[in-house]
């Protein structure tokens, strides 16, 4: 049976469990707020009991800086060393790792990743601006709703496939954003 495992990367990876949430937070760390119009300064895994599952794992934060302000129009982000072009990030520095595995060796095509409102996949998340990129990309994708999805690279036949993704989110208004989900879809055979 095919499986997805989502991991928040850090000095120690934190697997995002079945009832956990990925939390975009401010500079104050777990449960701190992100200022309206700014992007996350930290990212965490929050359990169903509201505990910080990634505490002590030093999660890798990817903060969106610009869509095209870098060298040759590259997007820029800050992942702990100041502002850099995003094509300089390493796999290990990306916040999110998605592993797809199957018992047999399968090829993957047409993989996409996007944010939506948690109900209708074509709808944009409510009150959140979401940016993402796959490791190696030169520019962020404003992947809100399935029509604007980030396209992930095809992968040749193997039993395990890893995707490394930069993710960054910004509130458009004050308050908790619950109509906001991230989704991945792929084709395998």
């Amino acid at each position: 049976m095919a499986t997805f495992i989502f991991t928040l990367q850090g000095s120690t990876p934190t697997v995002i469990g079945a009832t956990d949430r990925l939390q975009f937070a401010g500079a104050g760390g777990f449960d701190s707020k992100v200022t309206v119009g700014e992007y996350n300064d930290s990212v965490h895994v929050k359990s169903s009991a509201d505990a910080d599952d990634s505490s002590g794992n030093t999660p890798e934060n990817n903060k969106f800086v610009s869509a095209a302000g870098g060298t040759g129009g590259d997007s820029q982000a800050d992942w702990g060393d100041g502002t850099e072009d995003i094509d300089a990030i390493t796999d290990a520095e990306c916040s999110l790792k998605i592993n797809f595995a199957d018992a047999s060796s399968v090829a993957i095509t047409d993989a996409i990743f996007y944010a939506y409102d948690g109900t209708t996949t074509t709808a944009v998340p409510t009150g959140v601006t979401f940016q993402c990129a796959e490791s190696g990309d030169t520019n962020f994708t404003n992947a809100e709703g399935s029509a604007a999805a980030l396209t992930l690279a095809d992968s040749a036949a193997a039993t395990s496939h890893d995707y490394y993704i930069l993710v960054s989110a910004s509130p458009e208004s004050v308050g908790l954003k619950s109509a906001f989900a991230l989704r991945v879809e792929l084709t395998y055979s």
Partner: protein
Amino acid sequence: MQKVRWITSLNNGETLYEERGNFKTIKGELSPWQRLLVYIQDNSLEITSIALTYDERTRFNLPSAGKSPKFHAFSLAAKPVSFLFFRKLGGNVIDGQIDRETADHFAVIEATYEDGNKIQLWVDEANGNCWTLIIK
């Protein structure tokens, strides 16, 4: 084990089934479909029809490229020029690890016509419900 599996007929008269004979899932080896593609290429064969079966009971067929259908209406219909099988899996990241119960998981067969139009038939792994798509 998948509930929805492919069945395909080849132009040498063989009908092959996922999870039977040489096309069983073998841990760590190419998937049954990938091994079918290798078999077809190695023997210069072509797929003439493809179907999906749910729980080995219900069968979902796409139009065939066969030349001798029983009903006249089928012989008049346009014939696909190629066939494809794949699985589609989708799920929410923020809902954490996705398992059989929470993922959207479909098996899909596709027929392509000479003009490039395609028919896809999607069967839900969870319940056997079926949808069709026409792609231009």
